């Protein structure tokens, strides 16, 4: 390989490394903010209410934060595949991407399911209150 080619490859690797760090940091910030927000809400709701269903909306929002953070992390995984020098690193990358993809899939499904349950409960309570009013 020529000296110029080596330089270009190195420059590409450092540029991708910088991008990977940036995108992964964004994902980490989203997850940290979501976890902190959920912690404050869990403690606040726990001190004010004793109903287990009061925690479901907080879990839904935390799930959305996690899903968004996962999207960023998956983006950084895709970027990393551009420069994965060894089979060991490639294997780890594949495992991490598989975990993140599976978690993203299950989180989205759970969010949909819980959202549906919350809507059903709201509808049921609305029907119950209208019946007692009449």
């Amino acid at each position, binding site marked *: 390989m020529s000296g110029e080619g080596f330089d270009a490859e190195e420059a590409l690797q450092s540029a991708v490394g910088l991008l990977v*760090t940036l995108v*992964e*940091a964004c*994902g*980490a910030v989203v*997850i*940290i903010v*979501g*976890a*902190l927000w*959920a*912690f404050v809400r*869990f*403690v606040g709701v*726990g*001190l004010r*209410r*004793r*109903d*287990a*269903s009061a*925690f479901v909306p907080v*879990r839904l929002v*935390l*799930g959305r934060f*996690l899903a968004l*953070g*996962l999207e960023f*992390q998956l983006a950084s995984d895709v970027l990393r595949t551009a420069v994965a020098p060894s089979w060991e690193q490639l294997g*780890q*990358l594949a*495992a*991490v991407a598989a*975990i*993140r993809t*599976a*978690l993203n899939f*299950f989180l989205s499904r*759970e969010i949909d399911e819980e959202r549906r349950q919350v809507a059903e*409960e709201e509808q049921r309570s609305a029907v119950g209150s209208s019946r007692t009013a009449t």
Partner: protein
Amino acid sequence: MTGALDAAALAVVAAALVSAGVVLVSTRRPAAALPVLLDLLTAAGLLRLAAEPSWQRIVSAAAVVALRHLVVHGLRAGAAAWSVAGSGQSVTAGPDLQRLGVRARAGRPGQVQRRGR
């Protein structure tokens, strides 16, 4: 960045324990506290994965994700099983069942009521 992410993951683990404790004390239902604990532990696992991927971290994150999935589905399946049992025959809710948040109502087939205060 690895050190900062490790510290953040540790803080999230502490937040998970405190949150689950608050939910447990507030509702007196482990079934309500467990998903809270596992959700925040999942967040901590994701932060650790972002820090520096190693096989040990990958396996532990996968274990938390699998455990979370297993617990969520186990609780849902258990609740569904109790509701089916309640529709076929009269079932008196015991303390364990009440802790799960499901109360089978005798004489009202197929109906499940969440326990709330």
